[in-house]
């Protein structure tokens, strides 16, 4: 669990990040900072490079240049499977629940990488819907339950930075509300969260700061308490 006394130090520092899928140049010099204990969102239209930024952090993009530092360690050039072992938990878009695994197996799949992860009873307390579903095939859960499972399985590992890619996509408002409650509880527990969202109304209820991305670059940073003054600008960025 992150130490509250360091809550203002930079945990993740991305500088001049460029990323490529084959020939196409997707990120053009992304720079952003996430401090310990913060919830930071990446807002932006489809194709702005939000998910690619997440994938770049995890090392699952073909080629990337620039700098991604997590707790002082450079992630660019690091072997892919070592990055999560530093304490970064990844919740991919579309949840990535495994069809050939039961709910229990999905929950216990990611290896524990650090001490201090949540226990399974604590996880059930956070997501009561998952309790008693252990032997169900992972993909037989509803979309919302699958999203909960995708978050839940990272909480066991002891990761203290969580990358959440569009956790509300395609979910009913009631379920979005439940996810929001859970994310706020995780913040209270001291988790640091980088969140990709299209739904800024949802983002505004949980985030400290928002980075706005356009065409592979960060074009603005809006603290959550200044969101109201910047609404007009934000509408323009997001095209809503």
């Amino acid at each position, binding site marked *: 669990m992150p130490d509250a006394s360091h809550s203002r130090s930079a945990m993740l520092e991305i500088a001049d990040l460029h990323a490529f899928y084959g020939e196409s140049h997707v990120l053009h010099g992304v720079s952003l900072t996430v401090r310990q204990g913060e919830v930071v969102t990446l807002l932006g239209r489809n194709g702005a490079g939000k998910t690619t930024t997440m994938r770049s952090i*995890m*090392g*699952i993009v073909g080629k990337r240049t620039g700098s991604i530092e997590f707790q002082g360690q450079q992630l660019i050039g690091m*072997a*892919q*499977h*070592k*990055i*999560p*072992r530093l304490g970064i938990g*990844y919740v*991919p878009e579309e949840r*990535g629940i*495994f*069809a*050939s*695994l039961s709910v229990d*197996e999905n929950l*216990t*799949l*990611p*290896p524990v*990488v650090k001490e201090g992860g949540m226990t399974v009873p604590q996880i059930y307390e956070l997501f009561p819907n998952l309790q008693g579903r252990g032997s169900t095939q992972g993909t037989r859960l509803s979309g919302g339950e699958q999203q909960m499972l995708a978050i839940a399985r990272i909480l066991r*590992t002891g990761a203290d930075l969580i990358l959440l890619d569009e956790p509300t996509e395609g979910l009913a408002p009631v379920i979005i509300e439940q996810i929001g409650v859970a994310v706020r509880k995780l913040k209270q527990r001291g988790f640091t969260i980088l969140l990709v969202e299209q739904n800024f109304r949802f983002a505004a209820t949980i985030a400290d700061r928002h980075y706005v991305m356009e065409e592979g670059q960060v074009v603005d940073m809006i603290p959550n308490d200044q969101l109201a003054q910047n609404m007009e600008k934000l509408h323009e960025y997001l095209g809503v």
Partner: protein
Amino acid sequence: MPTIFGIPPQALFGQLLLGLINGSFYALLSLGLAVIFGMLNVINFAHGALYMLGAFVAWLLMTQVGIGYWWALLLAPLAVGAVGVLLEKSLLSRLYKLDHLYGLLLTFGIALMIEGLFRHLYGVSGQPYPIPRELAGGQNLGFMFLPNYRGWVVAASLVVCLATWYAIERTQLGAYLRAATENPVLVQAFGINVPRMVTLTYGFGVALAGLAGVLAAPIYQVSPLMGSNLIIVVFAVVVIGGMGSILGAVLTGYGLGLLEGLTKVFYPEASNIVVFVIMAVVLMIKPAGLFGREK
């Protein structure tokens, strides 16, 4: 003398036993192929050659070093597994981003090279390999005579197949394997070294072929062509069972072995093609195989 459908029981059970023996080898080999296909998406045409290699390692250990059957049962699969690890690291790993066809062509080429090498060194006539002393003789079961060694082959193959199935379907390691088969990128993003897992999976899959080779040595002769004779039928078994299905590979292996045995009793002329007829029918009705999932 009593008969069953006009067939003397000795002949019927004798053929069923032969079918079960063949089925044991089909199951072991198609299990390895299914594990490899599931994880690597490679149709491992070198499987027959590596089965032959397992038998040859056992024969070489016996004739050159004086190491007997029981040690060979351990050492030959390890040696074949090591060859597999080298092949995967040096050659196969370069092909994963390409179409299945490239893996098939590469492993076919490897099979031809290994077989060619052994033909050159040892000729095509088979080398005898003795049945281990402990398993000589047999049991008279009343309705048939069961040679001890054949009983052992069936039992050993069953145990290995069940243990493999258990490891894949019921353990944490198996969960990694199944998950990585489905979405290797995400499994890697949880901190698991997927490329190493892929290498070891290939090594394990071909080690099963090596083990089958050692088990086969005392029954069939050790010959450079023993693998290519078998592998075509085994591929038919895998297609019938469903590519990538572990349980499907095992059950279909035994089932088709038995069916072949029965065909030899009732209509011997068809015994060599019955597996292929079934394959054609299965492909028409259920293209993903009996146990395969449609993608």
